[in-house]
């Protein structure tokens, strides 16, 4: 058989590794990705394991790497991508890496500290300069006089804090002039946000004897460090008397305002300004050099950060795995237990040998298989094509070990069922081309490492989508549906049966009544019966017909039922494969055969009836199976027939009383002639089929449990095969077995009926799709084409087409596509897989570096 029909044979192996070569061997196994290790130290917590220190060192390295990455991102640089397929580093490389990372981290920390200090000094210098420049302005504008005035007013108990607009009282002028020369001042810088509160506080505390003037300044942030305030204001405080100076100084301290001593003398101020300017320039150049150095360090690290983090990830995972091994008494040997595919044991052996050679050890590791009763994990060898379909199956449940896998059948049946529901060749072409684009640029898209989940969902399913598109084109041509239009390639088999005279009369009548009158063709003579039906798909005449649904609905319904019953039949056959594989003849004879009989006697019988009705019943009267059939009004209703079969209703034989051909006399027909028996021996045949079907249910239900009970009483051990009915101690529990069998039987019997009806969704969704498509045509494209002739028409068709295209893609392709996808999925998971699938297995999760790195990158979940 092929690769994914059943899961791979797995064996549990024990590996004996020498401690010196253990690291290298595990590294090789990680690259190979075929061994799933079991934790032999399960009861030990993290601190009791052997390689705890190494893990701690790895954690430290990861922390340093995170810090470095943050610094790189802060400078808005990109972290370079690295090749994830690098070899795992050797243990001696680990110490090198550690030292390297330590050095880089230290450098970055010291650079950051220096930058902070430099920024502080720079700020101070800038503020000093701003103070000097502002003071010049403030002093020159006669603030001193205003200050003196305000303070003397306050001393006299008049006026408010700052009233700049009042005209000076010239009587007092000379007196105040004298006082102004005695005023002291203090200058400084405070944050703008605190300015107003500062003023108010000063006014209150000093009882108005301090005059405040402020000027907004802005200090540039040259280093790009965070938390550097730039919105500041220079203030100058005038007051008289030294006593107030200390109070003012304390208030400034409280508001975190820096006091800068500004000389009163103009000359002194000028020289100080020159000094400060030179200092600022020096500071600028030092600052620039520091920032450049930081940039160089960060750039160099940025190139290597990803590579280092992959290396650390690999080292850490190797040590985690080594922690799972048990150490033997002599402390020289590590023992590992792992699951691996039996077919790949030689590859694992080679990997171990390579690891031993690399570490320079001479003792070869020993690999031997262990006997076990545990259920091995399920492993499928997949390629990029089968991966998508296996994921669809796995989403429902992982296959049991060595049971039949639905995936290889799903590869074709899933797109096919999708296409039955999607059935439009035009939309199918769009879907096919989109997936083709994905496939053509596959390598580029994978290299781009896109992390968006929705895109990855569509891209990951590109092979599924391309098959869905291809089958949709096929079913679209058969439904004769291209964006709701039909094509006429072979020539329609329906022609006009009406005389031209009658046609003319109807036309006139229609014109006078202002209606469009219809005429319903009768297949005889309109249908070219001898020439046969339209050879490929639905005849194009039905696209013109107003009663098109009356024809298409029965077709799609019968088709859905036939396809559904085929799939269920196939599912039951797959269960036979499982029974044979397990060598359980009990299951074959007393579960499989009753199931088959139940399915066939009722539903395959229905399908056969459908086909026979298609073949034999036409509109012309003739003898069918010995009964005179007058015409299409007596064509047997199969659905009611099935119900009558179950209710064992007594019906008349044939369609016409006396079974004599009479072309005109309708009274001779039986009442409801379409509900009567229509082939000889039908009553007897249906009774037998019903009996067989009904009897197969108790057989399904009772034989197997009772047989197992009898075997158990005789002392024969029950193999089980699926572990049901056996509790942990392996004891046979009749109650459990009985309940399981009852559930299984009811599920199958009821399931057959309900699932058959469930397949009608194939009809329902294709009807919905066709109708939506028709609406878009009628309401948009058709309107655009018939809007008007000439230039206006050209513009309108452009507009209408764009709306049509957007709605087609979003509603019909995306929404309907998702909907059909979902229903096809449900049909597979429930209707198909319930006939044979267990789906309670465990997935094989090997130790693989590629998987770990992809997880860390966020590419896989």
């Amino acid at each position, binding site marked *: 058989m092929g690769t994914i029909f059943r899961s791979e044979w797995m064996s549990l192996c024990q590996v004996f590794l020498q401690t010196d070569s253990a690291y290298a061997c595990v590294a090789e196994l990680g690259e190979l990705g075929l061994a799933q290790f079991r934790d032999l130290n399960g009861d030990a917590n993290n601190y009791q394991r052997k390689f705890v220190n190494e893990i701690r060192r790895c954690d430290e390295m990861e922390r340093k790497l995170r810090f470095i990455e943050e610094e790189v991102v802060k400078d808005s640089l990109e972290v370079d991508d690295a090749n994830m397929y690098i070899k795992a580093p050797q243990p001696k490389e680990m110490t090198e890496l550690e030292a390297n990372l330590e050095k880089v981290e230290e450098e970055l920390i010291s650079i950051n500290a220096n930058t902070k200090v430099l920024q502080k000094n720079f700020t101070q210098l800038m503020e000093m300069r701003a103070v000097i420049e502002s003071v010049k302005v403030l002093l020159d504008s006669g603030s001193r006089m205003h200050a003196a005035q305000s303070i003397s007013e306050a001393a006299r108990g008049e006026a408010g804090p700052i009233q700049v607009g009042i005209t000076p009282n010239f009587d007092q002028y000379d007196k105040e002039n004298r006082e102004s020369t005695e005023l002291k001042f203090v200058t400084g810088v405070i944050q703008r946000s605190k300015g107003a509160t500062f003023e108010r506080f000063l006014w209150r505390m000093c009882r108005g004897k301090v005059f405040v003037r402020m000027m907004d300044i802005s200090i540039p942030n040259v280093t790009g460090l965070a938390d550097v305030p730039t919105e500041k204001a220079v203030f100058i405080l005038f007051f008289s008397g030294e006593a107030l100076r200390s109070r003012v100084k304390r208030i400034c301290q409280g508001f975190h305002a820096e006091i800068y001593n500004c000389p009163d003398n103009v000359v002194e101020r000028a020289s100080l300004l020159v000094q400060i300017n030179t200092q600022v320039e020096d500071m600028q150049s030092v600052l620039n050099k520091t920032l450049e150095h930081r940039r160089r360090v960060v750039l160099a690290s940025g190139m290597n950060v990803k590579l280092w983090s992959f290396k650390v990830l690999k080292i850490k995972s190797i040590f985690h795995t080594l922690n799972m091994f048990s150490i033997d008494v002599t402390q020289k040997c590590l023992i590992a237990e792992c699951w691996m595919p039996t077919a790949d044991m030689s590859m694992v052996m080679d990997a171990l040998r390579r690891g031993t050679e690399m570490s320079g050890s001479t003792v070869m590791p020993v690999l031997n298989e262990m006997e076990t009763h545990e259920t091995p994990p399920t492993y499928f060898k997949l390629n990029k094509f089968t991966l998508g379909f296996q994921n669809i199956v796995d989403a429902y449940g992982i296959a049991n070990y060595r049971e039949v896998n639905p995936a290889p059948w799903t590869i074709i049946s899933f797109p096919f069922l999708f296409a039955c529901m999607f059935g439009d060749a035009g939309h199918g072409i769009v879907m096919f081309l989109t997936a083709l684009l994905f496939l053509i640029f596959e390598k580029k898209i994978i290299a781009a490492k896109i992390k968006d989940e929705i895109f990855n969902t569509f891209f990951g399913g590109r092979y599924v989508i391309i098959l869905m598109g291809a089958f949709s084109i096929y079913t679209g041509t058969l439904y004769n549906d291209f964006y709701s239009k039909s094509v006429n390639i072979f020539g329609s088999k329906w022609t006009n049966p009406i005389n031209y005279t009658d046609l003319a009369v109807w036309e006139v009548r229609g014109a006078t009544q202002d209606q469009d009158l219809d005429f319903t063709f009768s297949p005889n003579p309109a249908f070219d019966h001898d020439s046969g039906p339209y050879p490929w798909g639905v005849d194009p005449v039905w696209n*013109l017909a107003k009663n098109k649904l009356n024809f298409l609905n029965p077709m799609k319904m019968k088709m859905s039922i036939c396809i559904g019953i085929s799939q269920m039949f196939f599912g039951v056959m797959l269960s036979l494969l499982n029974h044979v594989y397990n060598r359980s003849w009990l299951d074959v004879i007393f579960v499989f055969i009753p199931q088959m009989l139940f399915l066939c006697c009722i539903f395959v019988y229905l399908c056969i009836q459908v086909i026979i009705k298609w073949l034999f019943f036409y509109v012309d009267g003739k003898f069918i199976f010995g009964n005179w059939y007058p015409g299409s009004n007596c064509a047997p209703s199969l659905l009611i027939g099935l119900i009558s079969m179950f209710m064992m209703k007594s019906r008349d034989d044939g369609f016409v009383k006396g079974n004599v051909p009479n072309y005109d006399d309708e009274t001779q027909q039986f009442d409801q002639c379409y509900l009567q028996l229509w082939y000889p021996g039908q009553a007897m045949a249906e009774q037998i089929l019903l009996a067989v079907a009904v009897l197969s249910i108790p057989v399904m239900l009772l034989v197997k449990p009772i047989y197992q009970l009898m075997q158990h009483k005789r002392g024969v051990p029950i193999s089980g095969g699926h572990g049901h009915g056996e509790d942990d101690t392996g004891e046979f529990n009749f109650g459990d077995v009985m309940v399981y069998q009852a559930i299984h039987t009811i599920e199958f019997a009821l399931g057959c009926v309900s699932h058959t009806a469930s397949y009608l969704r194939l009809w329902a969704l294709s009807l919905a799709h066709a109708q939506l498509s028709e609406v878009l045509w009628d309401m948009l494209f058709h309107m655009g084409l018939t809007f008007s002739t000439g230039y206006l028409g050209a513009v309108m068709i452009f507009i209408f087409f764009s709306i049509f295209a957007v709605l087609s893609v979003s509603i019909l392709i995306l929404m309907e596509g998702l909907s059909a996808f979902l229903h096809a999925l449900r049909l597979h998971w429930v209707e198909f897989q319930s006939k044979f699938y267990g789906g309670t297995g465990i997935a094989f999760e090997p130790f693989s570096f590629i998987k770990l790195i992809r997880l860390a990158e966020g590419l896989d979940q």
Partner: protein
Amino acid sequence: MGVIVPLVSVSAFWALIGFGGPWLVPKGVNRGIIQTMIVLTAVCCWMFWILVYLHQLNPLIGPQISVKTIRWMAEKWGNAPGVDTHYSTTSSP
């Protein structure tokens, strides 16, 4: 063409693919899967085609079409045998 011609030709086509295709698959790891895919495709596609074909073999109803469209059909696709294409002034339906 009769009923038989499309029936035989299409069935033969899918039978060729379904029975002959598996022999053409080159040996390799994926031989089984590809053979399964070919056979399943042939079966599904043939079954879909034959179900549509059989449904139209003996239609029990005919299309209901507006008189205007019937005129167009008569011009383009011709008339059924036995249709009187002359206009007689005396008859009335």
